[in-house]
């Protein structure tokens, strides 16, 4: 386990967990640890976004089933609790930064303060401002135009805010973790640090310093952090793609539904890209962080976590889709196969292995984004019918023969492109 987690969860002799008898004491304890440890704030931001975005997915299914809604419906509660967690995480990150920073004057304009922030904090701050402002914006939109669809200005602000803050949180976790490791190294002169992730006001990159010991994993980024950081990005960007492609945005005042053909093209290109980019990046990050040439497991776990979230929020919540759970779980097979392939054969010189991995991962998007994707492609079918909750699976399985053969090649190509871009972003920074 990562040192920060050890620090956070270990039994402290001066503050034994047995002595914490109230929630307030526990929160104070938590806050005290967080003050000393910036990574905790970033973890909270990621977990908050994860809760909000997953609840958003659940909310879409709830609307499809059209169960009666109140403000306190479980999906809405999840969204708002998630936003509160993001907010608290960002406050922890920023307050710690300003307390420890001697560069920033209290007289600086807040714009200057924002510009001077390291990139991860900047992204988290921008994302949180968008998240918080989306609430009143959404209320105003509802008041003026009644019920809105999936794609609306206020929902866009909310989802983009979640995506931006989750990207900031991942970068922050990676940089904070290494900063912490570097601090540990400075305290232990006998050990030579071999890696650092530097973050400055304009960029964040993974940088290797002289490395004499490829197998040294003492400065590793915890695999848990990679998963916690990358999954919210995947979920929120997927949400943005759904917003741009699902036909759920025709309301009384506005019809924001995308053109069906354009929506199908967006889905066919964007979903394979994000699946391949996220899963391949999780593998790359795990390899880089562990200083190992081969690293099995993180890609698989990332994929499985995504499958579990979609299973929980979009399939289990619709009783008619429960019989299709075994079908959906089969998505694990290609993901694990690609993980094995990469961990056994991938090297910086064997790009063909990466391309094969990207093509395979990209081409599974059609099953990975079941059942919501049914609504997108149903619109372009010549004999399209209303996708009732009880008919979703039968319509989906009928369209596999017609749609999937047309999509598999562009999806594979886009998946390959995603691995190339991921490699550029992660490897070339070294």
């Amino acid at each position: 386990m990562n040192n920060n987690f050890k620090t956070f969860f270990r039994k402290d002799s001066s503050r034994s967990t047995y002595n914490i008898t109230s929630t307030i004491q526990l929160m104070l304890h938590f806050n005290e640890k967080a003050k000393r440890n910036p990574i905790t704030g970033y973890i909270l931001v990621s977990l908050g976004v994860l809760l909000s975005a997953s609840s958003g997915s659940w909310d879409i299914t709830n609307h499809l089933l059209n169960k009666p809604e109140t403000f306190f419906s479980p999906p809405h509660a999840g969204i708002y609790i998630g936003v509160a967690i993001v907010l608290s995480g960002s406050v922890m990150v920023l307050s710690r930064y300003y307390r420890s920073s001697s560069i920033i004057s209290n007289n600086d304009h807040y714009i200057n303060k924002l510009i001077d922030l390291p990139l991860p904090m900047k992204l988290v701050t921008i994302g949180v401002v968008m998240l918080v402002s989306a609430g009143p914006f959404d209320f105003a939109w509802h008041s003026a135009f009644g019920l809105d669809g999936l794609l609306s200005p206020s929902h866009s602000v909310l989802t983009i805010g979640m995506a931006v803050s989750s990207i900031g949180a991942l970068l922050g976790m990676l940089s904070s973790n290494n900063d912490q490791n570097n601090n540990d190294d400075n305290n232990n002169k006998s050990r030579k640090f071999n890696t650092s992730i530097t973050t400055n006001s304009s960029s964040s990159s993974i940088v290797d310093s002289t490395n004499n010991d490829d197998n040294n994993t003492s400065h590793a980024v915890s695999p848990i952090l990679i998963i916690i950081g990358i999954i919210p990005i995947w979920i929120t960007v997927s949400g943005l793609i759904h917003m741009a492609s699902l036909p759920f945005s025709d309301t009384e005042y506005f019809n924001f539904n995308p053109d069906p053909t354009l929506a199908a093209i967006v889905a066919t290109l964007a979903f394979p890209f994000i699946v391949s980019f996220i899963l391949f990046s999780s593998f790359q990050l795990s390899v880089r962080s562990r200083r190992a040439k081969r690293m099995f497991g993180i890609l698989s776990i990332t994929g499985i976590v995504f499958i579990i979230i979609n299973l929980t929020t979009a399939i289990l919540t619709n009783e008619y889709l429960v019989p299709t759970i075994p079908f959906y779980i089969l998505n694990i097979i290609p993901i694990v196969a690609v993980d094995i392939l990469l961990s056994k054969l991938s090297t910086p010189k064997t790009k063909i292995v990466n391309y094969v991995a990207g093509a395979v991962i990209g081409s599974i998007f059609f099953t990975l984004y079941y059942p919501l994707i049914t609504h997108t492609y149903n619109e372009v079918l010549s004999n399209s019918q209303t996708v009732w909750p009880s008919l979703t699976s039968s319509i989906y399985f009928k369209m596999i023969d017609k749609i999937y053969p047309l999509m598999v090649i562009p999806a594979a190509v886009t998946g390959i492109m995603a691995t190339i871009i991921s490699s550029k972003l992660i490897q070339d920074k070294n």
Partner: protein
Amino acid sequence: MSKPFLSKAVPVITNVTMSALEVRLGKSFNIFVTSTNQGDTADIQIVSISFPNLTRIDNGNIITIKNRNFTQEPEFIEIGDDTGSKYSGLSEITTAKYPFIEFFSRPWKTDTIYQSEIEIKPPVVGKFMIFIKAVSLPYNNEFSHYPHTGIKDHQEEFVDTYYVNVKN
């Protein structure tokens, strides 16, 4: 792969109770409608109550919903509004020739009972007609609607007819 399960809901109007069969002009009467689903869970099941003698619903003056336990808000359709026809949902659109109220629940689970009570104050003397029907969606077969025979309304769907004599 096994054939996907297809839901087959069976909507039934189990009871219609009128508080009076004859009323004086200016007085009101109540109609109490009970419906259930005797098949599989329906994605949507609608109970439609139409008023062919009315030119508008005039909610609160002519028609007042006294009670209902449906999961969704009722929809009021006025003359000239677009509405679905031939049990197609909204696939085949027609224009409403008289006003009606659609009570609906989604989903409507097996054997669940939903009821509505409406107070009606007929505006003119004569036979005040009321059409009642139930439809489940998605529409599968003749059991997806109730009644199965009889006269057809402006949506080309079967209805049960009820009336009250309105006298001076």
